[in-house]
């Protein structure tokens, strides 16, 4: 008996060990096409799981690579059968199916009587993940899908009505999660996003390429996003959250710097993470702000963003080459503008003229020796001075005090924690 018992237990153990290892399928993510890494899958699963349970609406993500010549619809049906999805009449379900072999993808909803996802809504979602799909960035596809589902479900829950054709928002509505605070460990959005439509499409793609190139070069994500409204968040919160929840922070180093533009109140804010907190000190942020804000104020947004990118690159390059960062005790050396030089010369000239005048007047005074004697000190009879009355009377006292200037900050970077718990630096202003 004992022997039999131990054999059964060990068999069970083996099964338990082997079975999970072979099947790359968990809960809500079925990566049959093997395009995602296990880390990605676990992460996405956590996200979709939370969404599903929060809204009572099962959200699935499936990838397939069936090479049998059938249509994508058939492939999806097959997958649903395999995983027993939508087999009852009550479970509300949404599935995003990526067919790698067909180079196509589709979304199916099941049992949603009070529609959360209208046709317009589904079309919207399809459109928003098109680019990432074409770029084969399936990780980003999955995350964006998850975020949009979250957003749609949240809206339907709050407003009691789904997104319709005319109420569909800009994608910026889906930047931040509505449930949970999970941070994707890889970037899911492009470096440059222009939701507020401040630059033309040519500049947009140019900036995107530039930021991507610089981010790779310095191993630090440099991102820019423009939105119409920051919603209920302050610029600091928005910048931090945008950065965190969209997976910014360079791959290996998790360093990053991002610029957020909120047009509603004309806010700009820069957020930093990782080593970039040290690179971009409070002084540095203020300095960079001074460089590009005037462009923004003048409406020359493309120039302003280019300036921001260039400045970030210059700061990072400076640190790479010298190991030092720009701070209050090591200010950025601008070549003296003509104005500055002229001002210096002007001051020096005035001082020089005054000193010259004083010295030459002394020379001139040498020439004059005839003057009235103002006093008769030479004729004072020595010892004749008699003080008959000497009185020193105290009248009153007056004390004034002035507040001392607080010592100017010694530089460095001030940091704070964002809603996701990560540490950020940065600063901002208006334009």
């Amino acid at each position: 008996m004992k022997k039999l018992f131990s054999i059964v237990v060990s068999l069970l153990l083996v099964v338990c060990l082997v079975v999970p290892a072979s099947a790359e399928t968990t809960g809500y993510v079925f990566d049959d096409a093997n395009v995602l890494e296990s880390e990605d899958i676990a992460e996405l699963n956590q996200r979709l799981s939370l969404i599903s349970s929060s809204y009572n609406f099962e959200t699935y993500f499936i990838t397939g690579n069936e090479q049998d010549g059938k249509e994508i619809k058939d492939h999806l049906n097959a997958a649903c059968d395999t995983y027993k999805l939508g087999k009852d009449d009550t479970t509300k379900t949404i599935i995003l199916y990526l067919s790698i072999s067909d180079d196509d993808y589709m979304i199916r909803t099941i049992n949603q009587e009070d529609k959360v996802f209208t046709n317009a809504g589904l079309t919207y979602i399809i459109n928003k993940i098109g680019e990432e799909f074409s770029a084969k960035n399936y990780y980003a596809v999955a995350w964006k899908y998850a975020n949009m589902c979250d957003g749609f479900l949240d809206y339907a829950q709050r407003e009691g009505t789904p997104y319709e054709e005319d109420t569909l928002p800009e994608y910026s509505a889906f930047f931040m999660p509505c449930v949970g605070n999970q941070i994707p460990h890889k970037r899911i959005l492009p470096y440059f996003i222009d939701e507020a439509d401040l630059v033309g499409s040519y500049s947009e793609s140019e900036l995107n390429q530039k930021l991507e190139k610089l981010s790779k070069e310095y191993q630090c994500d440099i991102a820019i996003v423009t939105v119409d409204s920051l919603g209920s968040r302050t610029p600091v919160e928005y910048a931090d959250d945008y950065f965190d929840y969209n997976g910014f922070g360079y791959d290996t180093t998790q360093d990053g710097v991002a610029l957020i533009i909120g047009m509603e109140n004309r806010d700009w804010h820069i957020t930093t993470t990782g080593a970039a907190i040290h690179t971009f000190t409070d002084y540095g942020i203020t300095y960079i702000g001074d460089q590009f804000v005037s462009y923004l104020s003048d409406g020359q947004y493309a120039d302003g963003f280019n300036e921001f990118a260039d400045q970030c690159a210059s700061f990072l390059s400076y640190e790479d080459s010298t190991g030092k960062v720009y701070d209050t005790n090591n200010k950025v050396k601008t070549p003296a503008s003509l104005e500055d030089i002229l001002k210096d010369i002007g001051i020096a000239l005035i001082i020089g003229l005054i000193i010259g005048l004083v010295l030459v007047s002394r020379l001139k005074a040498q020439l004059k020796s005839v003057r009235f004697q103002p006093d008769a000190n030479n004729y004072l009879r020595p010892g004749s001075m008699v003080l008959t009355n000497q009185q020193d009377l105290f009248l009153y006292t007056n004390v004034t005090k002035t507040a001392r200037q607080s010592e100017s900050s010694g530089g460095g970077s001030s940091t704070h924690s964002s809603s996701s718990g990560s540490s950020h630096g940065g600063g901002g202003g208006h334009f």
Partner: protein
Amino acid sequence: MSELLEYKCPSCGGAIEFDTASQQMKCPYCRTEFAVESVKQYDEALKQQQGENIQWNSQAAEFISADESGMRSYRCQSCGGEVIGDETMAASSCPYCGNPIVVIEQFAGMLKPDVVIPFKLDKEAAKTALRNHYNGKRLLPKFFKSENHLDEIRGIYVPFGLFNADANANIDYRCTKVRTWSDSRYNYTETSYYSALRAGSLAFDNIPVDGSEKMPDDLMESIEPYNYKDAVDFQTAYLSGFLADKYDVGAEESIPRANNRIRTSAAEVFRSTVTGYTTVTPTTTNVQTTSTEVHYALLPVWILNTSWKDKKYMFAMNGQTGKFVGDLPCDKGLWWRWFGIYSGIASVIAYLIVHFFFN
């Protein structure tokens, strides 16, 4: 009736003069020196000798007329030449024979000087001092030194009133003591206000005030001070060889000037007794002066008149101490050149400092 006085050398009979170097009477002809007293006695003896031929009496200079300009003419008893002098001139030299003459009448019935400080320095010393006066004056026009033409050099005894006065002062001051300290949050300034009173008296002796109207007062004050130790009782003998001016500024006119100087000195002296404060400001100054004595003195001054490029310059040297004064012209070109040089260097240094320390 004015009289001109000439002293004769006991040795050779020539006209004897007062010599500054030796402080005695010296004959320029035979170079013998005599004490002033001796000459005087000899002179008196001489007069007695002459008998009815007392030259003194017959030497009464002919008085021609006193016209409005105050000029008078005298006849030199040595050569008979006529000497013109203005009213205040008391001693002069005959331009013809060079004999020194002393006009006695200036002193008769008028203010006779109590003391005189005899000349210690001679004409050569004055000329040398003039040349030295040019040295080290960077803005002096280049050719002034060489082209400046000495028109006239005169040794004059200038009449001064020497005033003794007592001054009573009563001065109020407003004073403050300021204390500052700080703690971590504030800088504090404590100002304590005081009222200080000082009253007392001072005495002044021998404040000189120029008694000659035509002698510029500021010029005379510039060559102060004189050392009264050398003052001697007045003897007309000292005057020979030099000119002397007469008093035409009365004591009443002079006193205000003396009082001004007294006031300034009193204010300074009393101010120096107010110590221990951060700031001191006099609020009421009250100085009363009472003149106690006046002495009249003749003080030695060398006056040099020069001209250069049609401009006249007047220099004065204290005949006792050698202090030399006189305003010199300023070369505008040099002024600008030195201004440029100093400004240029200062500007460059200022620019370097501004550039390297403030950027």
